[in-house]
């Protein structure tokens, strides 16, 4: 049965629909979070068995392979943490809880279809399912002006970027006569049209569309404003989930459909990677708001990740996937701490507010230090191992200059990450911060992310093997 190949997605859809229906009749809204957890767990169990139906299905629209599964597992793990964070965050603000959880699951559904897509039409469907849900999610604090501003900015710029992507897809379809990724690669090779201007234009337009979603400089302008305005759990979800999904599909489309244009997109990506790292890190230095700082830090991390895509091959792509896993958990953890210190959710967001936290709340201070050091790339934490593999793969493939830029940028980034740590431990507290009583769910989110930030760095071989096995489609 071909239906088996999308069984995880079906389970997730049912869970999201059930949440909508339960929300209408049930008064106790806390149950919605548990249903979302249950749905995610069920999807995870089904997804783990999805490789028994390996290969193409639905007339070449869907492909079941290790690459898709790798990302689906990453997304579902991140979704667990985001739901735990949301259960803490929305305990008072229950106005839109049903919509929140079902939109979150629909966004994950879009992500899961994106990484399984073997056809540009399916890629587009996945991206839209994800984007439409996230546009609404970023505006879900209805009484907060900044949240509305974030949603409006995101939807306007997102629609603009989608137009670029679609135009690129249509041009590539026009030149090669297919939207199927493998068929495009075959057509490019068979018709000998590497220099065809329309093909190059299509590639460039798609690059812009993906670049927007991944927030590469110069397509990053929306990122800080949207990340600042959106509620913290949604920001965390965008910074890890949306970015990882966009990168995954970016990588698959370019390596599967346009490997022949290697010499055209690789130099572009080198320039974008250097720009993204440098601009992201330099602007992050001057940020006073922790959410904006993390937004610029996520831009800079997109630049590091691009190094892996540039290096490519057997070392570059796995190290990029490994770094994505690392990045997901350390970033989620940092946002979880931001949330723990925000009283009603959106308080104490200035970096100055963090002064003295280290002595007053030693555990929170320690956990935040772990995430900051990991983001800066300091051993033995996972951020260091991730950067080590990325940069060494770049050196191995002959991109020494790019690796040097990456290392220099890590040094710059250490300044603003360590600044938070210095604030927490070496300044007397300026503000009387009493975090709202922590719920078990947030504690669990913090424990999971802290544990993984250590574990992935100390025992990297399991994750590296997974990443290496997941790039079957390249061979």
């Amino acid at each position, binding site marked *: 049965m071909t239906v088996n190949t999308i069984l995880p997605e079906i389970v997730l859809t049912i869970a999201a*629909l059930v949440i*909508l229906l339960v929300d*209408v009749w049930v008064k106790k809204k806390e149950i919605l979070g548990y249903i979302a957890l249950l749905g995610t767990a069920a999807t995870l169990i089904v997804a783990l068995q999805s490789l028994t139906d390996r290969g193409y299905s639905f007339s070449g629209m869907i492909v079941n392979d290790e690459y898709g599964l790798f990302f689906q597992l990453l997304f579902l793990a991140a979704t667990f943490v985001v739901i735990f964070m949301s259960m803490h965050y929305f305990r008072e603000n229950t106005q839109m809880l049903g919509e929140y959880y079902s939109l979150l699951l629909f966004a994950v559904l879009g992500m899961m279809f994106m990484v399984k897509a073997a056809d540009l039409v399916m890629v587009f469907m996945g991206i839209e399912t994800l984007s439409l849900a996230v546009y609404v999610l970023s505006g879900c604090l209805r009484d907060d002006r900044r949240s509305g501003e974030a949603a409006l900015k995101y939807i306007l710029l997102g629609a603009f970027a989608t137009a670029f992507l679609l135009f690129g897809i249509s041009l590539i379809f026009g030149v090669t006569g297919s939207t199927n990724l493998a068929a495009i690669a075959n057509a490019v090779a068979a018709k000998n*049209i590497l220099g*065809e201007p329309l093909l190059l234009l299509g590639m460039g337009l798609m690059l812009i569309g993906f670049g927007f979603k991944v927030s590469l400089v110069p397509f990053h302008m929306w990122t800080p404003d949207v990340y600042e305005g959106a509620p913290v759990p949604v920001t965390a979800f965008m910074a890890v989930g949306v970015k990882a999904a966009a990168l995954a599909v970016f990588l698959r489309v370019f390596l599967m459909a346009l490997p022949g244009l290697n010499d055209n997109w690789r130099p572009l990506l080198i320039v974008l990677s250097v720009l993204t790292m440098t601009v992201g890190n330099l602007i992050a230095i001057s940020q006073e708001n922790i959410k904006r700082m993390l937004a610029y830090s996520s831009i800079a991390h997109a630049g590091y990740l691009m190094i892996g895509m540039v290096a490519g091959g057997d070392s570059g792509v796995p190290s990029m996937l490994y770094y994505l896993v690392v990045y997901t958990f350390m970033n989620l953890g940092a946002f979880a701490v931001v949330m723990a210190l925000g009283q009603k959710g959106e308080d104490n967001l200035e970096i100055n507010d963090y002064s003295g936290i280290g002595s007053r709340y030693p555990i929170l201070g320690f956990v935040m230090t772990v995430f900051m050091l990991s983001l800066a790339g300091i051993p033995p934490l996972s951020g260091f191992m991730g950067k080590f593999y990325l940069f060494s793969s770049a050196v191995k493939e002959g991109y020494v200059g790019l690796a040097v830029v990456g290392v220099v940028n890590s040094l710059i980034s250490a300044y603003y990450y360590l600044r938070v740590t210095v604030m927490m431990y070496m300044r007397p507290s300026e503000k009387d911060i009493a975090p709202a009583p922590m719920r078990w769910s947030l504690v669990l989110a913090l424990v999971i992310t802290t544990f993984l930030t250590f574990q992935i760095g100390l025992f990297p071989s399991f994750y590296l093997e997974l990443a290496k096995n997941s790039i079957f489609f390249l061979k």
Partner: protein
Amino acid sequence: MLKGYGEILFYLVLVVGFSLFALGLSHIIGRKTYSKEKLMPYECGVDPIGTARIRVSVKFYLIAMLFIVFDIESVFLYSFATVFKELGMLGLIEIVIFIVILVVGLVYAWGKGALEWE
């Protein structure tokens, strides 16, 4: 390479050309009167009362959105109906799933009070 797009170009030229032709012709041979009444905004033949730029209640948008959703549903159903026999049982099951998802949406909208005007 671009073969097959010739028809589209021809059609594009035809469409633009015809529009220009029709508008231009009426511009050239039509009679022109510029009376005050003619330049007024048209409101069913009644003299306009006040400006037309008023705030529209957000409820209209809600109704419009619901309308579009079920309009699209019927569009899908029409195209499904034309190939009903070829698709067989599987097609029927799929369209039922499609409708069930929309019904869930309707139940949700109903339960949340989107269909009430107050």
